[in-house]
């Protein structure tokens, strides 16, 4: 049984590779819990409802050309494609690419204390499904 210390993933937003400006990333898949219990059963019955997925990312801010701010700022209020791969390399069954569309509902270009590294975290809803590609 293997394990992975995540140090070299690949994270693209709107086709821009922002990996080296990210220090935390989460893809969260959640489905609604639908109670379909009926009379005559001793235990509750459940079905999966609609999915409500989220993407969380923490940026180390960079305002240079082609970097974080120039990529994210124009996307606020719109949808964009995101891909996340555990290891920056060939796509395979053991190194899948997760791809999905997010709605950029919030963005904090400045979120730092004096003398601290300028970081910015955001959680965006995923519109639709999370696709797991292995080829």
């Amino acid at each position, binding site marked *: 049984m293997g394990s992975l210390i*995540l*140090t*070299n993933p690949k*994270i693209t937003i709107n086709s821009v590779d922002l*990996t*080296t400006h*990210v*220090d935390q990333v989460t893809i969260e898949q959640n489905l609604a819990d639908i109670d379909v219990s009926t009379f005559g059963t001793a235990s509750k019955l459940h079905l999966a409802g609609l999915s409500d997925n989220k993407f969380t990312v923490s940026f*180390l801010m960079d305002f240079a050309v082609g970097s974080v701010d120039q990529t994210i700022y124009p996307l606020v209020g719109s949808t964009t494609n995101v891909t996340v791969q555990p290891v920056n390399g060939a796509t395979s069954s053991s190194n899948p690419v997760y791809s999905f569309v997010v709605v950029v509902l919030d963005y904090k270009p400045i979120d730092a204390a004096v003398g601290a*590294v300028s970081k910015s975290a955001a959680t965006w809803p995923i519109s639709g499904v999370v696709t797991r590609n292995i080829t």
Partner: protein
Amino acid sequence: MSATIESMAEAIAAQLTTAGIRSTPYLGDTFTPPIALVAIKDVTYHEAFGVYPLGMYRFDVYLICARPSDRAGIQAIEAYMSSSGTSSIRATLEADPTWGGVVENAIVRSSGPMAGISLGASGAVYVSVPFTVEAYTS
């Protein structure tokens, strides 16, 4: 951007020397105060994802000043520890926080406490003050 610890220490020493603060990028066995000696303290790797990830490099800069008298020695140290002024080590190292493009960003985090030390066979007394300097680079 990728820099070695050696190149960062040399950049600190060069920036201090340019401002008139004599400096060496290593802890020399022999030196003549006043002088700033640069030494790497610790490194935090993987501050971001990537093959060559962002790292945080913390240096100690030991400023060693002679004590011709109590008052003169303290005044020199006060000028070096001040936040501004021509002798300010903080202002000098943050005037160009990339140190000539060697690092992505740098900050002088703190200085002190000062301490008396004796050097050489004569046991002459000097004042030493450490400055903690942080640099970020891949």
